[in-house]
């Protein structure tokens, strides 16, 4: 092996000195070596020691397995280096449990298999020296909040077995890497964020497709132009990756691309493919046998796919950090590369297309987690008690005194206090009831009645009334199913395959009531406030939308009870006079337009998907008594989005105001206020708050 980069050397030195380490350097800068070298060093010295390496996906762990083994082999180091996930054969599992030196796994497996069965791993935990968390930036929002608690459980067990592992982390660029690491692990690592790796020249273009009709700001979907650009690159022999937003679009884009460049070997890549198939495609890309790939964000993470020179993004990814990750897929080996972002018609795409300086000049977003969200925390406290009884003087990450929380769980029958300690008191397996990838309390299982009651998927409980109501069309793996019955008591939706040519789109009536106001401040002529809110939502009707033409084919009623949720929210309040110039029948539409623009720029401020924050407008809010727009965290209890929106309220308002005023449409469009008409009124409302 030759020399290492400066950031790798710093990471290794800090780890060897016993520090927790966080590397925050660009894609392909060799972060992996920064955490593998200290681990292999201890093995080479014959000091023993086990290491647990966490990757967000099975695929990534598999990918890193080969690299870790190669490196160990090069250095002549012996030790059992193995993945431990759902694909690990039962015979091999016992060997890994007993003698694994480097165990590569994912948080879901750690949560549901390793920690609850820690007694099988007693030797491993007792000798645990390093915990590696790769792709740290992925652990944000609900997922990150869960993972933070899984890590609390891990470190608690390590403590029980008498080990104090160092935590080595690697992250793509986010605005708050140190804070994210602290929230996730409770540790304050040495942060290494100066890359010593050379980078090739990188050309980035943001393309806004031309308006279909001048003055309407109606633009074609970005996929067509993105496919054309990718095809042009491939035709010239340029290795190309095309990122699209959904699994369905992968198939569609792949078909179109194959038609345009039939002689070039291209493959589709997405979740839902069998692991072997994915490995074959990755190997094809690495070896150069495949010249191009169409992918969802499944290839955004660091799976090694070798050298690609052109990245085309059909629509702006949900965050700037994610965008940089996708762009980083081209030019991995210090050679010149190009990336093209084709803007869609969503407000944030259009905002970014008009403000490329924001993309290039601003720091990337913060990654937010809220490990102390009560829904998440209480579930993991129960799971942790299953693993080991709690003493009241214990802490659990940064939660401080646990007595109140433990007593609460004991009161609900989850725990039982005995001899001064709290024991898990139910006859169940608590990890089974916690899905790390959602904050909802439970999921609704989709059951295919034509296949003997086989479960084919899940949706989170709050989404069920709009996605799997009676007569809804549910899409899964390219097939369409009609929902026969949604049973919310059993948390099951019964479906059957159908050949429907339409999809369904449900209307949700949401009412927001303020439970408690934590903070408020004046902004322009109004004010912005933060607090706990209760959402009450009711699915009312659904529309049938033709899959190809988007034509409205009819509608139906949804007969479901209303549901409620407690979460965090921000609300912007205008004085009554703000709507005085708008006729009474159009006031709601004007206020909703302003709300649409505000919610449209929220994902640019926070590192989250557009659907993570909801919006609701009330011309006369019972709580404020004035016109009010509520922005609320869609996760029960919130993951910190509302708090961040409140802190950046001024930026939010000015960005939303700019989005509307700079939109080239005349009277409103989906890219600014969500529909036609009242653009001037919405713009005036927003401007009045600046």
């Amino acid at each position, binding site marked *: 092996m030759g020399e290492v980069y400066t950031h790798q050397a710093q990471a290794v030195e800090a780890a060897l000195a016993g520090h927790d380490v966080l590397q925050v350097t660009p894609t392909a800068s060799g972060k992996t070596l920064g955490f593998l070298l200290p681990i292999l060093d201890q093995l080479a010295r014959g000091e023993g020691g086990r290491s647990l390496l966490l990757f967000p996906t099975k695929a990534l762990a598999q990918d890193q397995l080969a690299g870790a083994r190669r490196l160990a082999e090069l250095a002549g180091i012996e030790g059992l280096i193995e993945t431990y996930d759902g694909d690990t054969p039962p015979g091999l599992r016992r060997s890994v449990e007993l003698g694994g030196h480097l165990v590569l796994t994912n948080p879901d497996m750690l949560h549901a298999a390793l920690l*609850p*069965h*820690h*007694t*099988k791993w*007693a030797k491993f935990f007792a000798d645990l020296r390093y915990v590696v968390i790769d792709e740290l930036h992925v652990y944000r929002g609900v997922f990150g909040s869960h993972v933070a608690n899984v890590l609390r459980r891990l470190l608690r067990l390590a403590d029980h077995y008498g080990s104090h592992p160092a935590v080595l982390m690697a992250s793509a660029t986010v605005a708050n890497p140190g804070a994210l690491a602290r929230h996730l692990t409770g540790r304050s690592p040495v942060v290494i964020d100066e890359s010593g790796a050379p980078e090739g020249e990188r050309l980035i273009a943001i393309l806004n497709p031309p308006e279909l009709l001048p003055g309407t700001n109606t633009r074609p979907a970005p996929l067509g132009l993105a496919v054309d650009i990718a095809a042009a690159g491939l035709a010239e022999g340029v290795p190309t990756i095309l990122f699209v937003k959904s699994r369905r679009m992968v198939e569609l884009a792949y078909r179109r691309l194959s038609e345009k460049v039939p002689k070039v070997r291209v493959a589709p890549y997405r979740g839902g493919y069998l692991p072997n198939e994915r490995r074959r495609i990755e190997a094809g890309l690495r070896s150069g046998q495949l010249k191009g790939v169409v992918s969802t964000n499944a290839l955004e993470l660091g799976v090694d796919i070798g050298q690609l020179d052109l990245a085309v993004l059909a629509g702006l990814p949900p965050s700037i950090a994610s965008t940089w990750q996708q762009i980083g897929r081209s030019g991995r080996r210090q050679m010149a590369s190009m990336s093209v972002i084709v803007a869609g018609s969503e407000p944030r795409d259009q905002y970014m297309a008009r403000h490329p300086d924001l993309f290039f000049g601003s720091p990337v977003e913060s990654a937010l987690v809220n490990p102390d969200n*009560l*829904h998440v925390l*209480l579930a993991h406290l129960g799971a942790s008690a*299953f*693993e*080991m*009884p709690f003493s009241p003087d214990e802490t659990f990450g940064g939660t401080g005194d646990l007595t*109140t*929380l433990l007593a*609460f769980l*004991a*009161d*609900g*029958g989850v725990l*039982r*206090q*005995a*001899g*001064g*300690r709290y*024991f*898990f*008191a139910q*006859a*169940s*397996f608590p990890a089974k009831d916690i899905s790390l990838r959602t904050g909802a*309390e439970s999921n609704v299982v989709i059951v295919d009645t034509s296949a003997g009651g086989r479960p084919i998927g899940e949706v989170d409980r709050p989404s069920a009334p709009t996605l799997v109501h009676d007569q809804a069309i549910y899409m899964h793996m390219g097939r369409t199913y009609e929902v026969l019955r949604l049973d919310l008591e059993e948390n099951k939706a019964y479906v059957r395959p159908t050949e429907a040519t339409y999809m369904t789109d449900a209307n949700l009536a949401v009412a927001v009531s303020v*439970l*408690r106001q*934590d903070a408020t401040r004046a902004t322009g002529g109004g004010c912005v406030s933060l607090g*706990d809110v209760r959402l009450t939502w009711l699915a009312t009707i659904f529309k049938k939308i033709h899959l190809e033409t988007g034509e409205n084919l009819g509608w139906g009623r949804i007969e479901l009870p209303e549901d*409620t949720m*407690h979460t965090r929210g921000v609300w912007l309040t205008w004085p009554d006079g703000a709507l005085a110039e708008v006729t009474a029948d159009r006031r709601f539409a004007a206020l909703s337009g302003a709300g649409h623009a505000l919610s449209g720029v929220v994902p640019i401020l926070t590192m989250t998907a557009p659907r993570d924050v909801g919006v609701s407008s009330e011309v006369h809010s019972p709580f404020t008594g004035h016109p009010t727009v509520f922005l609320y965290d869609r996760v*029960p*209890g919130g993951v910190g989005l509302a708090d961040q929106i409140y802190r950046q309220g001024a930026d939010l308002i000015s960005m939303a105001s700019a989005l509307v005023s700079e939109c080239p449409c005349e009277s409103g469009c989906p890219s600014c206020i969500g529909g036609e008409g009242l653009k001037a009124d919405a713009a005036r409302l927003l401007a009045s708050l600046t």
Partner: protein
Amino acid sequence: MSLEDRLEAFRQRQKGGSSRPAGTRPALLTWEGRLAPGRPLRPRRRYLDIETTGFYDGLPVVLIGWAWAEAQDTLHFWQGSPGDLDAEGDLLREALKGGQSVVVTYNGTSFDLPRLRSRAVTWDVTLPDWEHEDLLPTARRLYGHRHIALGLSSIGRSLCGINRPPDLPGEGIAENARLFLETGERAFMDEIAAHNRHDLLALAVLDGRMAADIADAAAGPDLAFGQGRVHLAAGRPEEALAAFSRVPDDSPLSQRAGAMAGRAARLAGRMAADHLARATRPLPAPRAHLELARALERERGDVEGAIAACDAGITALSLLGDMAKGAPLMALLERRRRRLVRLIGRRRS
């Protein structure tokens, strides 16, 4: 909003939940006494059976039961249960003290011992290095071909004639344990202990019956076949061979006995061909033909006979019809046949 307020709001979203009075409880509940099963019992054996609230490692052991023979027909039992969840460690320390006897369980390899090991790690208790014997695999070998239910209660009833009175079903244990913790009423644990005692008794009686059956030199074909399997698994090929030889040719078990006797003969360093010939009839048995071909060639140098066995194996495989599943075996038979034909050719030339 304070944490208490937030919890109250959270509570509103939860269903059920109750607070329980915390009473004073003894650290351990114990039951001790004697049983007279009226059947012969084996000395120097300690029977172990545990009760838990579920199959997962993190769930506690709620009762540990031991029994051992005091005289040939008297069974002494000791059972312990934690008075509360914090006393599980005390129970393990008390109940898992070392002993010189062989520890005997039923399904203990998969359940009782791994669970005790897991809970011992949790409570930092050292599990003694017992000599252990699990009766379930032996029962499978000895009686499995009779197609009887092999659950402890079932086999105790069908084989040993133990008619246990109606008691708490196994699936009621978790609920009884919960009710005991909630109410402190010992009666709930008494029911679990009674259930456990029935199991201990069935275990001890079954052990005696199995030992007798394994040693029965005058056993009929059915039991002799089971004896052979037990001896074979225990690494006693001579005894296995003797047992399989007592299965007559007209027994429905003859063919299987032939195959196993062939294996036993090989392990004992004896000629296997005659036994394997039994294994090839009356039903089509291609693998037995392959084994026979191997034995004929190696033991007798009978290459023509080995080729005939391969041919019969290929025919038998064709008769079975499932060629996709049988493809690897067919390849082995054909490869061996080709080699044997070449060998004959070389010898002739």
